[in-house]
């Protein structure tokens, strides 16, 4: 029998030289076997090929020139007659069109402010439970927005007022984050007003419609119960919008004029348009998607059948057919002589499209919930909607956020398809217009690279965020 007692514990030693450092790393990661050596050589060859092909082109790039011919002559002068080089001058000359479309340059502050406020309004949603992160986000965004506002044309007094407002928002985000929720609620109306301009009273009176709904609900629900009160509220709001909305807005405008320069929809383009369609569709589609997901889970045959039918239909056809429906068919389905904005029509159809995808994501989130959660909610005596609102949805949505972000990335990339119904999105719409310019005829890599790079930054950033959330969810649950 071997017996043994250690009296003195051994201290850790450093690994032997052959087992550490660069040599070991190289041996394990690049040269561990014949196959691996082959792969390494192949990888290096590919890298070499790509770099030798693109690096001179990038380095020889010209930033200031007035036409492609001038670009080429400068490159020939600098780097020799056979050298290739990028003509970044086209980006330098036309970048604003890729970003703002045909928006009047003196009003660029409006989209800039709208975008800045979007991130501020998102802060309570993204970091509602963490004032420090929300404050950080809002401060950074405010600083960048103030900087951008400083760079575009605008009256000095307005700049100072807006800067003060943004600084106040940063302060509120740190101290009283809940107040920012009001901005989040107001944001849709504010942005529509900022981007399209016109009378502020139009937006206010649309908001008033929601006020009517809430008031009716508050007044009637104690007496008539939730479903009937909601029904009456909706009817009242619809009546308001159909009958009184315009008149009230007009009257108020007469009384107190509050209008800024109106901008037509055909002036919207570039990434501005992509963001308008992407952000409005995803935010509108989320509630519809949740309802569809609940419908699909429902025990009621009819509700379930309608939801499944809608989801499967939308997921079965290409987005492009939905867009053509917006541009060609919607005019048939709506009452005669209703003729509304193409952007709005596209937003409606894209919303329906992404609602079906969001519904599937949320359904996944619902399926991931343990059955005990439903039973616990029932046991507490909550009714269906209370259970959904207080117990089920907060958990299911949390699990679904990475999926929703992925849907949004897909949707944001798909906004480029609106070019086929004649909207000037950045990728093909604006690029085609720019390339049609006689000065820049023959340029193709540079504008596509520029647009692609912006898409890449936005989408890659969001996918990282979604990965971070997934990781966080996993640790939360363990």
């Amino acid at each position: 029998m071997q017996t043994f007692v250690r009296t003195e514990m051994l201290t850790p030693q450093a690994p032997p030289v052959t087992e550490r450092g660069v040599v070991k790393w190289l041996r394990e990661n690049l040269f561990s076997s014949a196959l691996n050596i082959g792969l390494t050589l192949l990888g290096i060859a590919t890298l070499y090929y790509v770099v030798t092909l693109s690096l001179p082109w990038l380095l020889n790039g010209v930033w200031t020139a007035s036409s492609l011919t001038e670009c080429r002559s400068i490159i020939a002068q600098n780097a020799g007659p056979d050298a290739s080089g990028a003509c970044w001058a086209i980006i330098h000359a036309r970048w604003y069109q890729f970003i703002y479309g045909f928006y009047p340059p003196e009003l660029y502050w409006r989209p800039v402010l709208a975008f800045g406020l979007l991130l501020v309004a998102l802060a309570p949603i993204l970091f509602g439970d963490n004032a420090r992160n929300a404050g950080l986000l809002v401060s950074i965004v405010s600083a960048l927005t103030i900087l951008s506002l400083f760079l575009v044309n605008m009256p000095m007094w307005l700049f100072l007022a807006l800067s003060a407002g943004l600084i106040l928002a940063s302060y509120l985000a740190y101290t009283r984050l809940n107040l920012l929720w009001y901005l989040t609620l107001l944001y849709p109306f504010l942005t529509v007003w900022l981007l399209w301009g016109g009378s502020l009273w139009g937006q206010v009176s649309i908001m008033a419609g929601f006020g009517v709904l809430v008031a009716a609900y508050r007044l009637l629900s104690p007496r008539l119960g939730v479903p009937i009160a909601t029904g009456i509220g909706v009817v009242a709001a619809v009546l308001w919008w159909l009958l009184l909305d315009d008149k009230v807005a007009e009257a108020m405008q007469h009384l107190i004029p509050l209008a800024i320069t109106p901008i037509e929809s055909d002036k919207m383009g570039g990434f501005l348009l992509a963001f308008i369609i992407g952000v409005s569709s995803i935010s509108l589609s989320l509630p519809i998607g949740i309802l569809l997901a609940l419908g699909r889970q429902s025990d009621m045959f009819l509700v379930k059948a309608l939801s499944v039918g809608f989801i499967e239909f939308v997921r079965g056809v290409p987005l492009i057919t939905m867009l053509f429906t917006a541009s060609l068919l919607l005019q048939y389905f709506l009452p005669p002589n209703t003729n509304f904005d193409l952007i709005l029509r596209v937003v409606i159809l894209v919303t329906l499209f992404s609602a079906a995808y969001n519904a599937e994501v949320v359904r996944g989130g619902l399926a991931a919930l343990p059955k005990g959660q439903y039973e616990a909610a029932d046991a507490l005596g909550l009714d269906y909607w209370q259970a959904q609102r207080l117990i089920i949805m907060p958990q299911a949505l949390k699990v679904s956020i990475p999926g929703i972000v992925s849907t949004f990335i897909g949707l944001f990339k798909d906004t480029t398809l609106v070019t086929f119904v004649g909207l000037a999105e950045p990728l093909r719409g604006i690029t085609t217009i720019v390339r049609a310019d006689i000065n820049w005829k023959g340029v193709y890599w540079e504008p596509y690279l520029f647009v692609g790079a912006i898409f890449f930054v936005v989408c890659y950033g969001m996918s990282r965020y979604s990965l971070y959330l997934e990781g966080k969810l996993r640790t939360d649950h363990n």
Partner: protein
Amino acid sequence: MANALQTNMTQEVAIQITAMNKWYGTFHVLRDINMTVQTGERIVICGPSGSGKSTLIRCVNRLEEHQQGQIIVDGTELTNDIKNIDKVRSEVGMVFQHFNLFPHLTIMENLTLAPIWVRKIPKAEADETAMYFLNKVKIPEQAHKYPGQLSGGQQQRVAIARSLCMKPRIMLFDEPTSALDPEMIKEVLDTMIGLAQDGMTMICVTHEMGFAQAVANRVIFMDQGQIVEQNEPREFFNNPKSDRTKLFLSQILGH
């Protein structure tokens, strides 16, 4: 003798580990391990989590590589030579904490896979061996089900039978009962005791101190990647020498 079990210990060496060291990156997980296992010996290794006990037995069939020192299993030294590794692995069976049965194959296919592809045994013969060992672990009726249809305890017994089908000379157990519900632990331990009675050479990482007292010839206590104490079970439990061992035993026995 330490316990009631008969031991046919010969002076034949099954495993010889000499001055073995292992690092994960720069972390020194196993420090100067020296250990000899005779054929027929039953060794229990215990120690706090992160003490390197699982890593040690995983080195014995080279699921982990060691960087210094020597491991000789049944006369074959473990080096980078694939032939040696193959030889050792077909002589050494291993049972894992999470069973690691192949979920896409039936119990029967799980049991016959390695004999057919590694030992090159005709299928009929492999089937016969498989049924023999399924009987031995007392679940012959589950032969044509899939692992997902069995309870945890049954799965672990299948995993033991799967290793036995390779007719190993040495068995390694890596915390075989720690993923099981309490009522299933006994059925697995009974299977292992049966194996010990048949004279199998066993190294078992476990916290089942009852099992150690009933079956082991020797208990090894590890901490911080080194062997701190080893002794025959009665002495080990009743009269621990090292402070670390005393502390560990007081924690694990709960008084």
